[in-house]
């Protein structure tokens, strides 16, 4: 007796299985490669050039009276000033833990950047006892503009558009490499 067409359709379909083994092999190889070539130590650098002013350049500076923004770290306070009097000196007391108030320094420098948009250099004058940790955090506050900071715009002369400034004073130079402090 012949089967009814409906019952023929109901017969169990053959199972299709994908061979996952080659895919598994590829994934294991990839993971091995990534783990092997990954750098777990994530180092960054803060660059500082050696000050190289010739006597002629110093004379030129005296004539031109540039900003030469200077941040002096003292035992109990931080002073932000210009040797040529281009800005009003500011004295910022250290925070309660005796460390320079990097947030206040950063805010003060943003205001100065708004006045001197073309300026990229800042002279840092730490004391001899300033630790490397504080040095790096102060340099960070001098160099970088954080996403949470109020935006600073600079006119692009070519396009005529106002564009956001991405760095504060990226060229940090140490001002007392030869002297005591």
């Amino acid at each position, binding site marked *: 007796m012949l089967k009814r067409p409906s019952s023929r359709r109901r017969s169990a379909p053959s199972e299709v*299985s994908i061979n*996952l*083994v080659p*895919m*598994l092999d590829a*994934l*294991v190889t*990839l*993971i091995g490669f*990534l*783990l092997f*070539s*990954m*750098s777990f*130590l*994530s*180092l*960054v*650098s*803060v*660059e*500082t*050039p*050696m000050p*190289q002013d010739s006597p002629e350049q110093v004379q030129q500076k005296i004539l031109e009276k540039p900003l030469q923004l200077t941040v002096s770290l003292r035992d109990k306070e931080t002073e932000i000033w210009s040797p040529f009097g281009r800005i009003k000196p500011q004295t910022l007391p250290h925070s309660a833990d005796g460390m320079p108030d990097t947030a206040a320094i950063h805010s003060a420098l943003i205001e100065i950047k708004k006045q001197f948009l073309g300026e990229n250099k800042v002279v840092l004058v*730490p*004391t*001899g*006892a*300033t*630790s*490397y*940790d504080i*040095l*790096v*955090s102060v*340099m*960070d506050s001098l*160099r*970088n503009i*954080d996403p949470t900071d109020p935006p600073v715009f600079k006119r692009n002369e070519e396009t005529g558009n106002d564009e956001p400034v991405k760095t504060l004073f990226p060229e940090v130079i*140490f001002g*007392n*490499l*030869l002297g005591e402090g």
Partner: protein
Amino acid sequence: MGSYRSIRFRRSRRKRTELELQLTSMLDVLVIILVFLLKSYSTSTNNFTTLPGMKLPISGSQDIPPDSLHLIITPEGMTFESNRIVEFDLGAGALGASEKDAQYALKSADLAEDGRQIKPLYEALVKAKDRAELLRAKSKARDADGKPLPFDGILAIQADKRVHYDTIRKIMYTGATAGFKVFRLLALKRET
């Protein structure tokens, strides 16, 4: 007898259920690991390493340092290109003393130019500079005028976060007298 056995076994083989390893869940786990690794993957072009027990400062800088000459400053001394060149006068910061006692004091015999220059470091830097210039002279790479590429004069400084600026200043002064113009202060990247 043998044929009887084989027929019996063939029957039993037919009846045995196939054992299949369930690989899907394992594949899921591997894909998640792969995505995580790809997300946190970062390649670097430098060979900078750190030493055990060394505490680096944290920086928000985004600059990945390319390979360059490398000086490491630990509470015990200075290591330049994997060679210990300066031993600090440990004093109270000797073995067993607390971290705060680390002095980073240089021995007076190691200092020159009114205490500004570190003699062993100066010698090591000058030697490294000479070697780099010799390699550049032998290299086929030339600048626009056909001269060997100039020495880049970059020194990467990797210091323990407790090192004082006074020591860093001496290192930078020594580097400058040896012909180095740019100093890269290394730090750990701040996680965002």
